[in-house]
């Protein structure tokens, strides 16, 4: 039997999805386009940001939107020393769970900081808007320390 060579081929798979937002996610993304952040009230009145369509505990359809602040507090963070190619920032940054002012449930987004030692649980952060907002989660380019 002949000895095979090792044959490699790099390739990229592309899935060019478009997605319908539905009314709840659409409302959130429309607000982002207008540089505002909205949440939704859960069955137990907790404010969820970004808004969910149904309450995960009761399965109740949710519809009561609430404006929340663009500032908030870091609940947890992870320091990315070496960003991956797909990451929204190509310099060291943090992923964080951020509880926005007026919200009860933290959201996950990225935080710009010069060094890991600058950031801490409980630190205050503020949304940094993209130059052009289009109605997409990356309209919030990142959060920055206040």
């Amino acid at each position, binding site marked *: *039997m*002949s000895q095979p060579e090792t044959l490699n081929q790099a390739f990229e798979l592309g899935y060019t*999805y478009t997605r319908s937002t539905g009314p709840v996610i659409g409302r959130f993304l429309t607000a982002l386009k207008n540089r505002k952040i909205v949440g939704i009230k859960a069955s137990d009145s907790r404010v969820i940001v970004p808004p969910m369509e149904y309450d995960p505990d009761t399965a109740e359809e949710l519809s009561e939107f609430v404006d929340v602040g663009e500032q908030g507090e870091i609940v947890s963070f992870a320091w990315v020393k070496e960003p991956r190619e797909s990451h929204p920032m190509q310099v060291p940054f943090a992923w964080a769970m951020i509880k926005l002012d007026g919200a009860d449930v933290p959201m996950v987004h990225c935080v710009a900081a010069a060094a890991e030692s600058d950031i801490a649980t409980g630190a205050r952060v503020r949304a940094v808007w993209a130059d052009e907002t289009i109605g997409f989660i990356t309209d919030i380019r990142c959060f920055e320390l206040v």
Partner: protein
Amino acid sequence: MSDEQDEITVINAPVYLKYNFTAGKAPARYLTQLKKGVLTGQRCPKCSAVYVPPRGSCASCGVATEEEVELSDKATVESFTIVSIPIPGNPIEPPFVVANLVLDGSNISLIHLLSECVNEDVHIGQRVQGVWNPESEWDYSMNNIRYFKPIDEPDVPVEKIGTLPVTGLEG
């Protein structure tokens, strides 16, 4: 624009993922031989079926195929279709013929193009042979064979398609 038109109802959320594919042992052997202009199948140790391109197992018996078998570039049309609609990204102008071809010496068909033929005359059992690109262009690719074309040999009876030895119908 009214507020209503500004409502977001659809997003573009493309996903691109990068990979580095490594061919398995059996396909790598096949492609290495193909670069040398040789078509190679693998024989099942249990049922003797010859697979091309080989994937490393006999799908019927579920055992590894290891014995290599050199095949002819002559083949028999097992089935075919005439493609009349353009396929995005495909440089070939329709109409063209895509066929299931069983290489002499193998038992399983592979798919390739038929050309230098009258499309309407293509038929099951027809004898064809590979038209190779110049040797200087050979790569680890089935594109080394540009297409198959009809040859002047008698048709293979339907019941014998997929059973021919490497020497063909007469052999």
